């Protein structure tokens, strides 16, 4: 059994670590590139969203390397991603790939449902070891999220362009290289130091932007044109409304860790604009925008893949939220036809809007 799974930002770092801890052979697809997109778009239904297409491209590329088992997340809600595993499985079969698809879904009744799927992948490992493996992978994901957060703070303040990203890359590499649980805390200290040593101008005036929207477009830099880095270079501190560690804690661990930011907060903040779940992250998008406005952020950017139903619902509600709480919102729709130049133009204009607005506010204050 050679297991592969689709890319979503840095997710692979944790999942691969978990599987290898349990002596499962892992074959990662190459990072998402234009080739992945071309392969995926060619075989996927035209109006499916980008995640389905990129996943499919990942599987095809991984198969060329010899992978034969796919681990994929599912879901149960109005978001179509819940059925993507089945659709992808059928497409792959039609194309003649021999893959076994294992779908990890938020447990419907009890967490053991998830464990039985993991059991299939992890084979004869003891439960205790499986739990330790999950802990090992999850620790890496938490560290990467922490690093990304620090990088988002440092990027607009760095003295030498690119220092933050070089530090981030080398720190991530250190996390990737950790093989044993006992080394985690030492490496944790080490990587925090690496990123904290980036020379920054702490007093620099930065624009604060919250990024909300669909999780895949938020986490995968290939599909969002590396928006965090771009905005950072333009002078914006970016906060991502969703991190993978938080999503896992909420949806797979059923919020075991109470200290972590939870989607419950953003869902609570969503009414009266949107009073119920519309699938995907639609309600969180509205709620997070409200929370960012309360935290005095300068602006919010909503990201969604073209044809994403929950986010379309949120998109039509956002102008009202934006108006009432006077926080500017920019919506960017991503798909395989999205042009980089157009995205950059909109981001630059949005930054101009935010900084002019901020200047004016300061003059009045």
């Amino acid at each position, binding site marked *: 059994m050679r297991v592969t799974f689709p890319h979503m930002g840095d997710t692979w770092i944790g999942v691969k670590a978990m599987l290898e801890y349990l002596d499962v052979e892992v074959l990662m697809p190459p990072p998402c590139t234009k080739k992945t997109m071309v392969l995926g778009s060619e075989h996927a239904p035209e109006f499916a969203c980008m995640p389905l297409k990129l996943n499919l491209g990942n599987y095809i590329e991984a198969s060329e390397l010899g992978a034969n088992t796919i681990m994929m997340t599912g879901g149960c809600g109005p978001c179509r991603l819940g059925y993507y595993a089945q659709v992808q499985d059928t497409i792959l079969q039609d194309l003649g790939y021999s893959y076994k698809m294992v779908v990890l879904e938020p447990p419907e009744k009890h967490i053991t449902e998830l464990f039985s799927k993991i059991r299939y992948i992890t084979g004869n490992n003891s439960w205790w070891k499986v739990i330790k493996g999950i802990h090992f992978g999850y620790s890496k994901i938490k560290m990467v999220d922490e690093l990304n957060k620090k990088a988002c703070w440092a990027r607009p303040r760095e003295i030498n362009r690119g220092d933050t990203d070089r530090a981030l890359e080398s720190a991530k590499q250190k996390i990737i290289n950790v093989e044993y649980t006992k080394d985690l805390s030492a490496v944790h200290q080490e990587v925090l130091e690496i990123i904290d040593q980036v020379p920054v101008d702490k007093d620099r005036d930065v624009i604060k932007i919250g990024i909300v929207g669909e999780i895949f477009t938020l986490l995968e830099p290939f599909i969002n044109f590396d928006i965090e880095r771009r905005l950072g270079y333009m002078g914006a501190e970016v906060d991502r409304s969703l991190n993978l560690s938080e999503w896992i804690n909420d949806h797979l661990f059923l919020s075991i860790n109470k200290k972590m930011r939870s989607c419950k907060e953003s869902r609570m903040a969503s009414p009266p604009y949107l009073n119920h779940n519309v699938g995907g992250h639609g309600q969180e998008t509205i709620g997070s925008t409200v929370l960012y406005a309360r935290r005095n952020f300068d602006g919010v950017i909503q990201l969604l893949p073209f044809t994403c139903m929950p986010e379309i619902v949120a998109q039509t509600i956002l*102008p009202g939220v934006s108006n009432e709480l006077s926080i500017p919102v920019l919506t960017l729709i991503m798909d395989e036809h999205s042009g980089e130049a157009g995205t950059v133009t909109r981001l*630059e204009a949005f930054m101009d809007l935010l900084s002019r607005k901020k200047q004016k506010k300061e003059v009045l204050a």
Partner: protein
Amino acid sequence: MKVFIGIDVGSVSTNLVLIDNNNNVLDFVYLRTSGQPIKMLQEGFRELSSRLPKDVQVYGAGTTGSGRQLAGVITGADIIKNEITTHAVAASFLVPGVQTILEIGGQDSKIIILRKGVVYDFAMNTVCAAGTGSFLDQQAYRLNIPIEEFGYMALEASNPVRIAGRCAVFAESDMIHKQQLGYNTPDIVAGLCEALVRNYLNNVGKGKQILSPVVFQGGVAANVGMKSAFEKFLQTEVAVPRYYNIMGAFGAAVLAREEALKNGKTKFKGFSVSEEEYRASGFECDGCANCCEIVEIIRSGTVLARWGDRCGKWSSSVTNSERIS
């Protein structure tokens, strides 16, 4: 005399504007880009310099439009600004108190909402380019009407026909269908203008509060048929500023002036750029499966700038030029 220059290299037109120290337009050049941005930029410089009074000295330059990076590298601009900001700046200078800007250019359309002189909100056409200048151009050509007369013909209509305007391709089929049924041309032209305005307001203008004064600018603002269709739908007066087709360049000049005065000097390379040999070449990077298409701007053998790479390997390899963004 102190002057400042604004350059807008757009998909359809390349414009140069010269302003004085009080933001008055002294001269401008409007050229068709015709897919050759560098050549037309140099052409524009040649034309402008031939008309220039002797005592003029350029104290600052700014570029905008989709070719802003290219133009910025070639001319040594003090600022390189996106077209949304420059259009807003220009309109608020020429029409004080403006609250809504409707802008339709060659390949994009946008709406900019200003409140108290500051950009408050904007939107640009996203996944569809139906209803922009290029489409009108194409339809005028197909109906064999010069684009300059297209709008006036719409005004002659007594009973505009309803044309499906959501998609440019279907709009065209619908127009042909109406022609074959025997509707007269002015009614069809007026119907097309209304369809485009409806499409604009339903897509780009969705959820935006359109308050007067409303300004209509961009190349399509030359079309009086579009202007009157906007007035009909919005039930308010729509102003077309005098320099409606060079607003981007004008805005860039105004911002260049601000920037140059702040810095006390300009990076502008002078009108001689029209005589130098510039070349843009491209290659496909084989570093990874992204296969980025890298563009190089070369002046007499030296690479001035590179862009087009996702990873920054090539764009950061040019050290003698400043970062472009």
